[in-house]
C-alpha cells in the first residue's frame, strides 16, 4: 500500500534520513523504531509532507505522493496523528472531531462516525463539550487519534503516540490502536517505546542515524539480541 524508496531528508547540510527503503502492505501494522535522533520523525514528517524530502519516492496505492500538498494527503486517504498530540486546545471534543471530517460533506455519516469514536473512547463522550486543552495528555492523545479516524483514512501515520503519557494511558491508547488495526486499518507506527511498538505490530524496521539497519517480523526483532541490547535495555 505504501512504498518508500530511497527517501532522503536533510536539514541544511545535515542528512537526517539517508535514502531508506520500506513498505507497508494493506491491512498491515508496521513499527518504525529507533533511538532519539535516528530520523524516525523526520521520515514520518516527510511522508506527511510537513517537510520536503531531499530525494526518493513515496508511492501510496500506486500513486506518487511525495510532491502532494499536506492537505491533499487527507483526501488521498492518509491521516497523520501528529507528535505531541496536536489537538485544537480551545475547541470542544466534538468540534475537534468535526474538524477531522473537514474534507467530508456527508453530515449524517459524520455524526455516525463521531458516535463510533465515542464507542472506542467512552472517555471522550463523557467530556464531549469540554475544551480539548483542559483534558489530560492521554485523553488528548485519544482525541488526536479519534480526529484522524474522522477523515475515514485508508492508512494511519502515528507519531510517538506513547510520548509523555502515564503507563496506564499508554496501555489504553495501544489497546485502541490494536482494535483499529484489527478492523483492517493500515498503520505505520513510529515509536521510541520499541517493546510496545513491536508487540503491537506485525513487522518492524529499526532506524539508526538515518538508515534502516534491521528489518523483519516483529516477533523476530523482539528476540533479536542486538535489538534487545540496544532498545529493550537488556
Amino acid at each position, binding site marked *: 500500500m505504501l512504498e518508500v524508496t530511497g527517501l532522503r531528508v536533510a536539514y541544511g547540510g545535515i542528512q537526517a534520513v539517508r535514502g531508506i527503503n520500506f513498505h507497508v502492505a494493506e491491512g498491515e501494522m508496521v513499527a518504525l523504531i529507533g533511538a532519539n535522533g535516528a530520523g524516525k520523525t523526520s521520515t514520518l514528517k516527510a511522508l506527511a509532507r510537513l517537510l520536503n524530502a531531499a530525494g526518493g519516492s513515496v508511492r501510496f496505492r500506486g500513486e506518487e505522493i511525495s510532491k502532494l500538498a499536506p492537505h491533499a494527503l487527507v*483526501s488521498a486517504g492518509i491521516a497523520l496523528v501528529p507528535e505531541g498530540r496536536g489537538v485544537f486546545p480551545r475547541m470542544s471534543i466534538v468540534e475537534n472531531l468535526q474538524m477531522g471530517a473537514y474534507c467530508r460533506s456527508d453530515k449524517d455519516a459524520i455524526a455516525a462516525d463521531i458516535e463510533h469514536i465515542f464507542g472506542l473512547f467512552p472517555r471522550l463522550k463523557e467530556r464531549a463539550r469540554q475544551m480539548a486543552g483542559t483534558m489530560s495528555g492521554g485523553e488528548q492523545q485519544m482525541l488526536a487519534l479519534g480526529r484522524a479516524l474522522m477523515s475515514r483514512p485508508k492508512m494511519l501515520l502515528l507519531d510517538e503516540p506513547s510520548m509523555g503519557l502515564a503507563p496506564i494511558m499508554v496501555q489504553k491508547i495501544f489497546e485502541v490502536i490494536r482494535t483499529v488495526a484489527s478492523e483492517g486499518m493500515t498503520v505505520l507506527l513510529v515509536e521510541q517505546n520499541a517493546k510496545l511498538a513491536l508487540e503491537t505490530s506485525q513487522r518492524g524496521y529499526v532506524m539508526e542515524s538515518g538508515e534502516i539497519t534491521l528489518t523483519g517480523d516483529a516477533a523476530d526483532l523482539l528476540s533479536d539480541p542486538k535489538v534487545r541490547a540496544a532498545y529493550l535495555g537488556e
Partner: protein
Amino acid sequence: MMRFEALRHDKRAAIAATVLIGILLAVAPFLIGSAAGSTWLRIVDFALLYIMLALGLNIVVGFAGLLDMGYIAFYAVGAYMYALLASPQFGLHLPMWAILPAGAAVAGIFGVLLGAPTLRLRGDYLAIVTLGFGEIIRIFLNNLNAPVNITNGPQGISGIDPIRIGGVSLSKPIDLFGFTLPSLHAYYYLFLALALAIVFVTIRLENSRIGRAWVAIREDEIAAKACGINTRNIKLLAFAMGASFGGVAGGLFAGFQAFVSPESFSLMESVMVLCMVVLGGMGNIPGVILGGILLTILPELFRHGAGPVQQAVFGKILLDPEALRMLLFGLALIVVMLYRPAGLWPSTRRRREFKGGAA
C-alpha cells in the same frame, strides 16, 4: 451577558430587540445631531468607518490569529483608489458603484501580496513584516509624485467627488419629499448600511467551513494541515477578505472627506484599529464593534471634555486638553487590559482561554 443568551432561545424577544435596535440606529443621527451638534455626528460617521476596519482586521487577527500591524495600508489603497478614479487628479469621475468594488478587489490583491511571502511567519515575526508593509505603502503614496505624478505626494489629493447615489450627491443636504436630510445624516445611513453588510458577511463567514478552518489554523497549524485544511489558501483568503473590507472603508473615507493624504494612514492608525479589535474582544463580532465605537469616541470625549471639566474643578485650564487626551486614552487602555485581559466583550472561546476553565 446572560440576557443575550436568553435572546437566543426566545424568538419574540429577539425580534423585539432587533426592531428596537433598528429604530434606535435609524433615529440616532437626529438625536445625536440635535443633542450634541454636527461635530459629534461626524465622529459617529467615523466610528462606523472604524467599525468596518475593525471587523476586517478581526478576520485576520481575531479569526485566523495572524497579527497584522500594517492593516491601515489596505484602507489607504481603498482611499487612493477612490481618490484617483473620482477627482480632478486624472480627470476621472467614475461612480461609487464602480469604485468601491474595484477598491475592495485591489485591496484584496494587496492582501494576498502581503500574505504570500509571510505564510510561514507567525506572531511577532509576522507583526514586524506587516508593520513594514504598512509603512512601505504609506511611503509610496508619499513619493509617487515624481517622475510621474500619480498620488500628488505629501500634498495629497483634494477635490475628490462626493459619494453620489442615483445622481444625488451626499455632500449637500438632500430634499426628500419636502423634508431635508443633512449631508452628515445621509453619510451616516450609507455607512450604517455598509457596516451592517460587513457585519452580516462576517457572521456568515465565522459560522462557515472557512471560519472553522481559520480558527483551526489559529489553534494549531500542523493539526489543521493534518485535518486536510489547505492552510496556504485559507490564510491568503483571510488576508484578502480582511483587506477588502479595509478597501471599502477606505473608499468611503475618501468620498466623505473629499481629501486624502498619506498622513491619514500612519502606523498609529494601524495600532488604533488593532486596539479596537483587542480591546473589544478578539474574534467576537459584537466585541469588535464595541471596541470600534469606544476607541473612536473616547479620545474625542477626552478632547472635548477635558477643558470644561478642568474649568469647573480648578477654575482654569491647567493642562492642554489636546495633550491630556492621549494620556487619558492610554490610561483607559491599560485599565481595560488589566481588568479585562480577554477584551471588553470576549468570545466564549477566548474567555475560556483566559480563565482556562471548562465549558
